């Protein structure tokens, strides 16, 4: 049946129109908040309502970095999430390779077990996790304090498990590792052993195989796993809220949240400028990720 009668054609056009209209409404509904954030952040007199700015200004952004500690928050966020992403990439690369190549009986049970970490709501784990990290933190403090005295607090800011960069990095990385391990395991499954065996025949040592063959071959997978981890950890709010308390360690979402909570003023211009700064890295990361995601999930490496 290739011939379409005029009435059928009209019906089709009408149903198409309806579909596009519905989709347009849904799209607008989804896009409006972002649009509002963008407009309001450049508005000298931002309001709760969507409106075209009367005067375009960068004042809101200037305020983020001068009046508030915006630069510090941005650095903290990038540093903590970047560090977590790096940990995830290294561990997922090595672990995914091992999980792909091993024939151990515990391979599948292990893979399903780690997925469970991903499924459990982090909120449910907060109390035991806090208790565990606090114990570690106290132990570390007990060791560092006699040695470094008054400098111990400064060192703990970097290496502490509670209210320290290291602790929050490890916690964020733990949450992202299961998915990354699965991605890398699947990726290495699709990578023929021939590549490594050819390198063995050519006389490559273990380190040479990893550096010159496996890492370049695994790059698309690692990038996908890393970007996933980055985007997901970037959006995390609860864990930084609980494990960071010093103002100088505060991350962007915490800064945004605390600015929103201030009782005497709601500065929509500042809030939206902060929100836009917070949005940007995720969007950029997604832009990068798209390329690798297609490559990774459409089937390994094409030689």
């Amino acid at each position, binding site marked *: 049946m290739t011939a379409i009668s005029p009435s059928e054609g009209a019906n089709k056009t009408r149903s198409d129109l309806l579909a596009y209209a519905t989709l347009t409404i849904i799209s607008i509904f989804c896009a409006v908040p972002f649009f509002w954030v963008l407009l309001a952040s450049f508005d000298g007199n931002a309001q709760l309502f969507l409106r075209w700015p009367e005067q375009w200004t960068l004042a809101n952004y200037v305020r983020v970095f001068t009046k508030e500690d915006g630069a510090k928050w941005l650095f903290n966020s990038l540093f903590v999430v970047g560090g977590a992403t790096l940990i995830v990439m290294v561990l997922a690369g090595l672990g995914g390779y091992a999980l792909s190549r091993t024939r151990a009986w515990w391979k599948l049970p292990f893979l399903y077990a780690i997925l469970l970490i991903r499924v459990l709501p982090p909120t449910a784990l907060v109390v035991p996790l806090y208790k565990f990290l606090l114990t570690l933190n106290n132990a570390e403090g007990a060791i560092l304090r006699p040695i470094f005295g008054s400098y111990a607090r400064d060192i703990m800011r970097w290496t502490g498990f509670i209210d320290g960069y290291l602790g929050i990095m490890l916690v964020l990385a733990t949450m992202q590792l299961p998915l990354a391990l699965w991605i890398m395991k699947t990726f290495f499954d699709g990578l023929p052993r*021939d*590549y490594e065996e*050819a390198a063995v025949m050519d006389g490559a040592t273990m380190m040479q195989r990893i550096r010159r063959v496996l890492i370049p071959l695994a790059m698309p997978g690692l990038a996908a796993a890393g970007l996933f981890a980055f985007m997901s950890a970037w959006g995390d709010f609860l864990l930084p809220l609980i494990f960071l308390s010093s103002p100088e360690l505060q991350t962007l979402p915490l800064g945004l949240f605390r600015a929103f909570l201030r009782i005497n003023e709601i500065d929509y211009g500042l809030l939206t400028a902060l929100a836009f700064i917070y949005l940007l890295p995720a969007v950029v990361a997604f832009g990068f990720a798209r390329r690798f995601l297609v490559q990774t999930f459409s089937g390994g490496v094409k*030689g």
Partner: protein
Amino acid sequence: MINLRNVRKFYGALEVIKGVDITVEDGEFAVFVGPSGCGKSTLLRMIAGLEGIDEGDLVLNGQRINDVPPDKRGIAMVFQSYALYPHMTVAENIGFSLSLKKVPEAEIKKQVEGVAEILQLTDYLSRKPGALSGGQRQRVAIGRAIIKKPSLILFDEPLSNLDSALRVQMRAELQRLHRELKATVVYVTHDQVEAMTMADRIVVLNKGVVAQQGAPMELYHQPENEFVATFIGSPKMNVLPMTATRRDAGKVHLESPLGLAIDLSDANGSVPQGEAKLGIRPEHLKLAPQGQGDFSAEVVIVERLGVETYLTVGSQQQPIVVRTEGDMTIRPGDRVSLTAERAACHLFDSTGRVLRSAQI
């Protein structure tokens, strides 16, 4: 020269290579052939050093190399998937082994160019493997092997990824390369046509043992067992169950349920009475005038190839393939009379061991 002496391999309790003895002379093109699961690839990987050897000796040029690491054996391997690194150019792929050995850049460049010239890859050196055709990738894989100047090159089903036209072309090219490089080659394939066309020596493997080894025509004309007889040659040899009886001295009388009855010479009486299998190749069955010949049967399938025609005659349970010259006018359903060429008949016992070889 490479020697395998009583080589064995176990996966747990399962013995996959069951005491194999093979010798490949210098400059020989040896092909290991057999059905999938016969152990031919495992054997190749054992020679390469990618799999351990559980028992027996692997000797290359007089030196036992069982425990020598793969890259120190002086052996190169071309993988089935070619395993070209997609992130390196053709030149980097070919020169990879040299660059691992910290050979100076200029020297690598010179050697890569030399190899590229032999393989007609000079124009493609700066390309990535993704931008090459199947045949070109194959040549890069060979280049990566020969730049090491190995005393032995191993090929693991290298043509199985190519389409049939390219396969024929690469077969000729591999033979040319073998002649030019004077290299010793061990080549694994499941395709007996590849084995027959390229090999100086064929090693037929079946279930982890060597079924027979020798020159292609030796295997074709004097198979030592039913497995080799039916594996080598296309279409394969007809094998018919027979009953052997002895009437005259120096002769054996054979009868089949199909109505075929022939006498074969058996001067030293090596054929016992009772069950036996008659092996006869399609080209050794000839059409006879109607009513004459050894037996007659109904034609089931006619395959015309122009220069020759293959007839499948007989029943579903016991089809017999006959090769005839030219374009036959015979059609399915016709009855034909056939004569078996006596000198070309093989006899096997019920276990498949040869009792009488063809006398041609």
